[in-house]
């Protein structure tokens, strides 16, 4: 796939999403699925493919006639100027909020597992500076970085899953009966809400080439994510059982704790956890790029430095001030986040498609 100068390919864009999603998935999926779907939770990744594919088709249809445009231009042609500006204002606020939440999650994870005595504010500040510098550079760099990191993560996850496989208790994963149908369907919601981040990805659509392959690569990304979610659930629920898994805030940490390579190399959680930094970096940077692009569309300011610095400060302040502890973040995520995500990133594009088809602009 030949890459146009100044743009990333759709393949790279999906890789960024996959990589970015590994950070929240580790925290959310095993815990949430164990709580709702119990031992049948491993079915969730298979079912999430259905709404996922629908969303990919919706996004693909929206961009059929807008190959060189971003989501902003698509919405402009569908909804007109005023409604688009309002939608993008809401998107902007929500993206900034998500960015600060993921920044805080990064801090909580490291302070809670590796750097017990570290100053949270300093840690978040360090990450924000790094991300702030990176966002001023080319978007292509994030695409390239994600390509390399994804390979690394695939190797890492496969190693962990293979190492943990002998310790998995099959009785933790069955029986599965028709009574589990509704809980499993309910557990699809948080998982799908994460996948819905492909919609805000298209805010950067004018920096993405080969959008004609949006559907093909979208489905591939969905399968990769489903496989990843399956590995997560199998290794967590399979190892500890749903009743124990739902009690942990970060259950995968304990899975990593149980990894033993060749019966001699153990307690590698520090090594694995520290590699998660890459995923945290990707998701914060990804959201910051989107926030920057949204600000660029809404504000008449040309120089990016004038909105990147305020954005970084706002995100940092929100991360430090709004979320007080990891439980608060968790509460926020389970009660509000998923519903708003689905509303903004899945329902609005669907409405846009319907309106666009009626008006014959998409």
């Amino acid at each position, binding site marked *: 796939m030949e*890459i146009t100068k100044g743009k990333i390919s759709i393949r790279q864009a999906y890789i960024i999403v996959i990589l970015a999603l590994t950070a929240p998935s580790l925290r959310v999926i095993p815990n949430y699925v164990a709580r709702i779907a119990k031992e049948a939770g491993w079915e969730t990744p298979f079912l999430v493919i259905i709404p996922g594919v629908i969303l990919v088709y919706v996004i693909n249809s929206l961009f059929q006639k807008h190959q060189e445009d971003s989501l902003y231009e698509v919405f402009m042609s569908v909804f007109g100027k005023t409604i688009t500006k309002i939608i993008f204002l809401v998107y902007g606020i929500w993206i900034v909020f998500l960015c600060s939440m993921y920044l805080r999650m990064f801090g909580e994870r490291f302070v809670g597992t590796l750097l017990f005595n570290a100053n949270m504010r300093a840690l978040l500040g360090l990450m924000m500076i790094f991300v702030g510098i*990176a966002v001023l550079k080319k978007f292509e760099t994030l695409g*390239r970085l994600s390509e390399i990191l994804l*390979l690394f993560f695939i190797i890492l996850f496969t190693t962990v899953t293979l190492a943990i496989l002998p310790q998995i208790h099959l009785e933790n994963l069955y029986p599965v009966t028709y009574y589990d149908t509704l809980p499993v369907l309910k557990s699809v919601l948080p998982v799908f809400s994460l996948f819905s981040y492909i919609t805000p990805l298209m805010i950067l659509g004018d920096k993405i080439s080969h959008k004609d392959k949006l559907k093909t690569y979208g489905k591939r990304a969905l399968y990769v994510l489903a496989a990843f979610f399956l590995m997560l659930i199998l290794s967590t629920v399979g190892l500890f059982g749903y009743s124990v898994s739902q009690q942990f805030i970060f259950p995968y940490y304990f899975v990593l704790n149980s990894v033993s390579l060749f019966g001699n*190399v153990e307690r590698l959680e520090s090594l694995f956890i520290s590699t998660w930094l*890459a995923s945290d970096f990707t998701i914060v940077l990804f959201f910051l790029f989107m926030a920057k692009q949204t600000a660029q569309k809404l504000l008449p300011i040309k120089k990016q430095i004038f909105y990147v610095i305020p954005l970084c400060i706002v995100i940092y302040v929100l991360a430090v001030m709004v979320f007080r502890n990891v439980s608060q973040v968790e509460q926020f995520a389970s009660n509000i986040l998923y519903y708003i995500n689905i509303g903004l990133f899945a329902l609005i594009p669907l409405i846009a498609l319907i309106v666009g088809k009626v008006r014959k602009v998409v």
Partner: protein
Amino acid sequence: MFNLWQIDRKVKELPQITIKGKLTSDKAKEVLGDSNDVLVKDIYTGNKSVKIQAIGIDGLIDSDVIDNYVLRPFTNIALNKTEKDLYEMCKNGVIYHISQKEIKDINEAVENILQGNTVVFFDHLEKAVSFDAKNLPARSITEPENESVLKGAKDAFIESIRVNTGLVRKKLKTPMLRLESFTVGKEAVTKLNIVYIEGVTDEDLLNKVREKIKNIDMNDLISAGKFEICMKDYKYSLFPQLLFTERVEKFCANICDGKVGVLIDGLPIAYLLPGVFSTYFQAPEDYSQNYVLSSGIRLLRYICFIITLVLPALYIAITMFHHEMMPTDLAISIIESKEGVPFDTAVEIVIMLVAFELLLEASLRLPKTIGSTISIIGGLIVGEAAVNAKFISPAVVVIIAFTGITGFVIPNQEMSNALRVCRIFLVICASLAGMFGISFGLLFILYYLCSIEVLGVPYMVPFVANGGKNMLKDTIIRLPRDLFGGKDD
């Protein structure tokens, strides 16, 4: 000669030398000054009003050729001829020489003389003709000193550009081979050739190389470093962006793969552009061995790359921050070895890394005959004594030794040097925050590597920005060509 710091300081630069004046031998002599190697020969015509002079530089010209094939025919035909007649005859081939050309101005005349040509001036007409009869001092073609191989050709580039282009032509007998000539340098003019195969090399890439060369703003191009700094897109980057080789075989193979080659007069090496990350892990032997063996060795190089980069930092992180990662027996053995050592592990590692760099630097400066002394003094005497005196724990010595050895496995010295600096950066990160520090440092390095582009080509190609294609063709492993339709892609 090696004053690279002058590059960005305009005040130190010499002005571009432009000679103004008539195209006459007197003017040329005036510019060249009173140097005893400047040879001036009057050509007798029997007519005192006719003034023809040949000028060349002793040591650069082939006197026999000039005497027998330029001066002698001139003398034979010159009697009672006018200057114009002689000039016309000379132009029309009476003076037979394969490489002769008309000179347009005095600048070109002086440049030709300095390149080793002989210029015949027709003063009254203000015309001149240059004869290429060089006999430049050059050593004979020898074996490569730094890139020797078991199987393969033994010829290496030398300091003469014409010999080097000849060597390339000898290997690449294709009519599509192109050599484009450029002259660079304000004061000391240096010739360079870009070499490529038309139809194989990307035209955009070629244009970028041409543009870069045209924009070289230097007084001279005598040292390799000056050329490199002018061609680099990321001037202050640690990582090499130009691949160089002294092997003709490697140069030609890369030209066939679509790279652009650059040959510089006076340098016994050739450059290949663009030099992306994976090319620094390729060695000439890889292509003369069985693909399984080559792939294994290539994979080993990448593993060594990771080890040499992170091992000291990892040791610090494990021993200072994450003791739980060590198997119990290993932990006990490290604790025992550290008994009585007054320094922190991080300080020990830094001391040993500095000592290692010192040994390396000292062994480079010493003559070959006594170079081995350093390894005896450093490795055996100082190392052994430092351990016995409890300055350093034996475990750290093992770690640094292993780091050093794995570093030497990387075929390209410039990449190896870049890793030495990155290694120290990671040691500092690990000393501050253990595994988190290492991750942070590695992420920083990787992000930087992904941001680099060499002449518009991403540095990490084909691992990135290539649609996932050819990632394993000739990178981490070397697959047989049959798997790719029996041809290069």
